[in-house]
């Protein structure tokens, strides 16, 4: 699952002659960004300290994995780096970056530093300075290019992301440190199936007025999904109805698509369906019933475990317990037998277990008498 652009023009970056020896490739580079990295950057942007710095942007490092040939990088996490910026100078806490990187890599030894991010689309000479820092052999990603991710967080504008790599370029040697050529590279937002569920509940919160939503149970989730599906079906049938009433022009492709979808319904006789349905539903209900029986048994067992050897008030309590136990015993036996039948291999063990379980509460009573 990916949200990406459709096509992209790859520009090969010019390489400085002195790095050629290291086998630096100028092959196309693709950047995959995981949603948690973006979320992390956005969180950082929200938490920026705008008291003692004039800049509105924040910077941080990108951490993740790089494919073997270096043509694809995956940004897995980020961390923020404190920095100050004003008209004529920029300060990045290098020490902090080093420590934090070490801490992050300790938790994920397989990940490496990939580059850096900032929260404005502006590329200026400070950007170049920081970019050169991240791309340098001592402190950065050399010989691989450092990735620079910008994400627009200005109010009123859309939040879009751009990724760049750089090539050294300068008008004169003394200005080399603060200039470089940024080349945009394609990127996509990548999320796995495991994250879909999480993204679902996050998206549910995004639709709510209060920006928060409870984590719902499975059954509520099912209800919501069913409602949405039924809405969608309603829309489709509305569309088909309009075409039939000649209020709207039909579309061959859509018609074909719908026909294909409809023909997916299996051809099974009604009797077979009814039969299968009844069988399955009985199994399911049986499992549910057994689970509840087990729960009651455990509850009972726990109660009896603590409510014994108490001579004074035992009489009354025990009577209750006994009555309940009598009921449960028949349940239990029936349950265990049912289970035995269903799960052949387990029947012996389950039966024995059931027997013991009922014997246990009896024992203390014998001891007490």
């Amino acid at each position, binding site marked *: 699952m990916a*949200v990406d652009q459709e096509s992209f023009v790859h520009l090969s970056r010019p390489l400085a002659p002195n790095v050629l020896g290291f086998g630096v490739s100028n092959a196309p580079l693709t950047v995959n960004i995981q949603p*948690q990295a973006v*979320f992390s950057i*956005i*969180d*950082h942007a*929200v*938490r920026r300290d705008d008291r003692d710095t004039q800049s509105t942007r924040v910077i941080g490092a990108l951490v993740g994995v790089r494919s073997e040939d270096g043509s694809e990088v995956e940004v897995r996490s980020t961390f923020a*780096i404190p920095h100050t910026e004003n008209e004529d100078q920029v300060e990045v806490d290098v020490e*902090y970056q080093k*420590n934090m990187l070490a*801490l992050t890599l300790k*938790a994920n030894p397989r990940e490496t530093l990939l580059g850096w991010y900032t929260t404005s689309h502006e590329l200026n000479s400070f950007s170049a300075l920081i970019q050169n820092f991240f791309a340098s052999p001592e402190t950065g990603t050399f010989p691989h290019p450092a990735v620079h991710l910008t994400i627009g967080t200005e109010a009123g504008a859309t*939040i879009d992301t751009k990724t760049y790599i750089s090539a050294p370029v300068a008008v004169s040697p003394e200005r080399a440190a603060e200039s470089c050529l940024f080349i945009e590279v394609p990127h996509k937002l990548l999320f796995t*199936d*495991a994250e*879909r*569920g*999480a*993204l*679902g*509940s*996050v*998206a*549910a*919160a*995004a*639709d709510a007025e209060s*920006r*928060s*939503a*409870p984590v719902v*149970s*499975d*059954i509520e*989730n099912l209800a*919501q*999904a069913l409602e949405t*599906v039924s809405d969608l079906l309603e829309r489709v049938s509305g569309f088909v109805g309009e075409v039939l009433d000649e209020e709207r022009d039909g*579309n*061959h*492709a859509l018609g074909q698509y719908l026909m294909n979808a409809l023909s997916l*319904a*299996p051809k*099974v006789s*009604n009797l077979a369906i*009814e039969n299968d349905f009844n069988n399955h*539903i009985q199994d399911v*209900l049986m*499992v*549910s019933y057994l*689970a*509840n029986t*087990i*729960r009651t048994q455990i509850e009972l067992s*726990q109660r009896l*475990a603590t409510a014994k050897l108490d001579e004074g008030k035992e009489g009354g309590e025990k009577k209750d317990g006994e009555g309940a136990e009598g009921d449960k015993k028949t349940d239990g036996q029936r349950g265990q037998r049912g289970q035995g039948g269903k799960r052949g291999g*387990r029947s012996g063990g389950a039966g024995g277990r059931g027997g013991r*379980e009922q014997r246990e509460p009896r*024992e203390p009573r014998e001891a007490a008498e």
Partner: protein
Amino acid sequence: MAEVQKDAPIKSVQVEALVVMKIVKHCSTSFPTVATGSIVGMDNNGAIEVTNSFQFPSVDVSSSDSHSDASSLAAAAPRAKANIVYQNEMIRHLKEVNVDANNVGWYTSATMGNFINMSFIENQYHYQKENEKTVALVHDVSRSSQGALSLRAFKLSPEFMTAYKEAKFTTESLRNSKLTYKDIFVELPVNVHNSHLLTSFLHQIPAPPKSAEIPMPASLDDIRRDPVQIPAHPGFESLDLSIDPFLEKTCDLLLDSIESHYTDLNNHQYYQRQLTREQFKITQWQAKRKAENAARLAAKQSPLPEDEWQRLFKLPQEPSRLEGMLNARQVDQYARQVDAFTANITAKMFAVRGNLLPE
């Protein structure tokens, strides 16, 4: 004001979307090994706001001794010494970039709700004894793969904390404190929360169509090439019909739990028999001593002391009831899970039947 906040009990847990994503990512990448990490945030009038998280360093299994596997090491990570140092260091660094620098607990991953064990209790106790307002977030990887996020928050109940502190889990103490397996944990409702910026970002993925009137596709291939972007919420994974494997797995786990329940019962029965035997011996000894003393008295000799049995016989130690309680809680959890699954399955099955057999 501070005093008021201090005493307010925790009522709910509010988790930032960032933390949800981080936890889900970490847990699913390390699945089936247990993943653990620390969460930071703050307490806001009885609601814990979890605003960031980080994982504990992973342990290289090959380098450590072969007896302990990665899961048990990861499960023990929150209370390991090295990780406490790591955690403090990390929080110190996070503080510099304006992240809420208070530890509010830890998170762990689980499979089909199998997280209730001694390790979980020890971890949570480790946190909760220092700070009352800490929670354990449990992310169930297997259940989340069905489509709905499963993230739950737990803390230990105050009664359980007291009992655990004194390490008293004998039958008598349990009866006195009226502590049952249902009172071990307090589950707190979890809310997912987004920042404003994130909300607007989320409304852009998947991007809404540019115009209200969508151009009609020219052929089937057009539809296939450009599939409809389904919004993340509500997810349609929960409509998947193959839920039986989950049910089966839960039943298996349930049976395993019953097995250990049975073992626990056996242990206790053994103790009971041992106790009866010892007590019988003591009574015998006392009767013998009495008879002896009566004989000595008759012979005008000084009687022998009658409480020597305390030295001679040793009553067996009662096994801790905690293990059994945890197990009971686990069974309870599985049973409820089965219940929830069957509710789902039944609904889906009736839907399928209604679809295939129109009335």
